[in-house]
């Protein structure tokens, strides 16, 4: 079966004949959408095929036992499962009614041990990451460290020696729990409690993989740490758990990218990311989410920021079937700052329900949210945000700007700004715009020689430029390329 798919893929790559392409796609429905979505191939799936479906106490106990975890973590997992069972499905946002929790594989072990070099990785996994361009990024020193998670576990991890010597820790969360338990006892679940929401509870019950980062006092990690998440198994649930601790006066930029094959049935990605930003530290967390359009992406991300610290979320959502994600910043110390730049693309059959939460809990705190969304081909882009200023958080300031761009008349955008202010001495700004790509703009660019889809892509690129400019160069280029792929065939 997989050989057949590999062969079909090969054929697709080498032909432009629409008849041939159609025949290959008819014979191999798994490949539907290949062409627009470049990461849609699937590897052979021995590990996934044998994995158990559904979640219960046994599954949770089994995961914990396989990982040889301390007793307290097992207890926490069990608590998470209890909350997950008890909490109703959220109905206030995107439609989640089609998620079948009993059909999902909660833990897939694809390799017995973590590789230290690319050559040590099993061939199929190595091929996957080579197609994604990860070894090049590392070789060209675009990154300070790399983590690659395949299915449930991190299969490869590397950090630069000089950073290691300075005391920077960057490893997969499972290993970190064994080697640095003190951080976990203190911080794990401290930013996002086990019962925070249904999906955070599920993550706590079945979490596996993810990154652990610790940056010691005063250390600036100048080039980004990068993580790549890949789902390969059909109906797989990926539940990585990331914990980042930036000690006083430190700086780190963490980047993650996500892809998955295209199947006929859905997968679930439900991560939890907890970030602790200590006094005067700064953390920037960048996501380019490009899951295939059969992945439910339901992620809880939150940072707690101490006095004078800064948290920046840069959140790009291009893929997935449904995304619900609202990166949050809890500003707990005076002069703490929070910033979210969010960009979302909703194409055919996609609903991007994204935004941010800013909670001001101390005086003189400031935050800003800039959200840009593009909807096309009947997709739906929603902005959902919360700005909360607690009593005594005097002289706090927040600004929210959300702009939506509609490429056609069948797509949809909506805005749900929630504001909860319990202090008089605050400054707030809120701007929201919805625009449509105008006939005049298209005509202007076309009369300058650009084909309609090129003109459209140029307008869309211009629209999200304020966010693209915040990305490292190679990610900005990647984002532009993804936009062009998205816009191809979007008109006409």
């Amino acid at each position, binding site marked *: 079966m997989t050989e057949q798919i590999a062969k079909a893929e090969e054929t697709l790559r080498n032909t432009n004949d629409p008849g041939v392409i159609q025949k290959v796609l008819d014979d191999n429905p798994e490949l539907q959408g290949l062409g627009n979505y470049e990461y849609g191939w699937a590897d052979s799936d021995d590990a996934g095929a044998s994995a158990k479906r559904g979640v219960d106490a046994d599954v949770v106990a089994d995961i914990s036992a396989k990982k040889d975890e301390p007793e307290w973590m097992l207890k926490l997992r069990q608590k998470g499962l209890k909350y997950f069972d008890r909490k109703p499905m959220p109905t206030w946002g995107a439609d989640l009614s089609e998620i079948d929790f009993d059909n999902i594989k909660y833990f897939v072990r694809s390799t017995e041990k973590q590789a230290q070099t690319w050559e040590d990785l099993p061939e199929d996994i190595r091929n996957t990451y080579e197609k994604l361009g990860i070894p090049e990024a590392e070789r060209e020193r675009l990154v300070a460290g790399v983590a690659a998670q395949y299915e449930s576990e991190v299969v490869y991890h590397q950090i630069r020696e000089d950073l290691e010597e300075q005391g920077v820790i960057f490893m997969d969360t499972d290993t970190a729990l064994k080697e640095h338990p003190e951080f976990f006892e203190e911080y794990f679940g401290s930013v996002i409690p086990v019962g925070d929401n249904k999906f955070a509870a599920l993550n706590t019950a079945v979490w596996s993989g993810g990154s652990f980062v610790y940056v010691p006092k005063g250390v600036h990690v100048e080039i980004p740490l990068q993580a790549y998440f890949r789902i390969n198994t059909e109906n797989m649930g990926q539940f990585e758990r990331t914990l980042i601790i930036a000690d006083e006066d430190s700086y780190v930029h963490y980047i993650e990218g996500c892809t998955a094959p295209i199947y006929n049935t859905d997968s679930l990605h439900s991560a939890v990311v907890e970030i602790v930003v200590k006094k005067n530290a700064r953390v920037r967390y960048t996501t380019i989410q490009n899951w295939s359009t059969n992945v439910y992406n339901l992620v809880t991300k939150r940072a707690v920021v101490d006095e004078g610290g800064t948290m920046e979320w840069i959140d790009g959502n291009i893929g997935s079937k449904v995304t619900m994600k609202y990166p949050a910043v809890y500003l707990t110390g005076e002069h703490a700052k929070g910033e979210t730049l969010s960009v979302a693309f909703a194409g055919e059959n996609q609903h991007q329900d994204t935004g941010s939460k800013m909670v001001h809990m101390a005086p003189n705190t400031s935050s800003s949210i800039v959200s840009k969304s593009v909807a096309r081909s009947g997709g739906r882009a929603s902005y959902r945000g919360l700005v909360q200023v607690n009593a005594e958080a005097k002289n706090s300031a927040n600004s929210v700007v959300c702009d939506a761009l509609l490429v056609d008349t069948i797509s949809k955008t909506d805005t749900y700004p929630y504001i909860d202010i319990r202090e008089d001495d605050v400054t707030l700004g809120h701007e929201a715009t919805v625009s449509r790509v105008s006939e005049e703009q298209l005509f202007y660019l076309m009369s300058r020689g650009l084909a309609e889809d090129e003109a459209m892509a*140029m*307008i869309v690129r211009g629209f999200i*430029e304020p966010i693209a400019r915040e990305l490292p160069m190679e990610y900005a280029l990647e984002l532009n390329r993804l936009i062009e792929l998205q816009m191809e065939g979007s008109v006409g």
Partner: protein
Amino acid sequence: MSTLEIKDLHVSIETDQGTKEILKGVSLTISSGEKHAIMGPNGSGKSTLASTIAGHPRYEVTSGSITLDGEDVLEMEPDERAQAGLFLAMQYPVEVPGVTMTNFLRTAKTAIDGEAPKLRTWTKEVKDAMEKLRIDADFANRNVNEGFSGGEKKRVEILQLELFKPKIAVLDETDSGLDIDALRVVSEGVNRAHEENNMGTLLITHYTRILNYIKPDYVHVFVDGKVAEQGGPELADELEANGYDRFLAAVSAA
């Protein structure tokens, strides 16, 4: 040597009150090196003619033809018309937020020529053209037409005219909203494009003022969707003296 030939062109638009015919049989021939001026009162269909030549989707050609060197222009999309060598300097250039002039000019040049311009010579060419049109260098990094004054937008249209080197250019009221200095600078740009590229021009205007700088070979008086009279530069002088009354009276009498 190129020729744009418009024959018995009829054009309609959809309005709230139904279909309305704007152009009622326009015939014009413009060849390389020639300067044609179309003059006429408001609402006579001058801008409709300009937009139709460039392929604006709002205008429906009900009969007649437009050809460029024998090729059917009406069969072409707006981008194909640009690639074939047509250019429209617009009356109301559109803003494109987030796209710098530099990026836009290079992308458009590449699309029109079918290959990317050589980076080193292109950068210099853009810089020189901007200087000649007295466009400040920092415009290169500004977004297309965003926050530009009316005069700045028109200069940038002529900048494109000079850089893209079309065979035939249509200037839709390029003179409106220009002060006397800007009018001169813009006119010099058009004249340069004539001399250097042997461009043919169709200049649409209300006023004779710009004709002091861009000397037309032919003047066409446009009234009620048709060419009412054709002549040489002396026709413009007559319009300057007597206005459009004579032509309008003829229409209402008919």
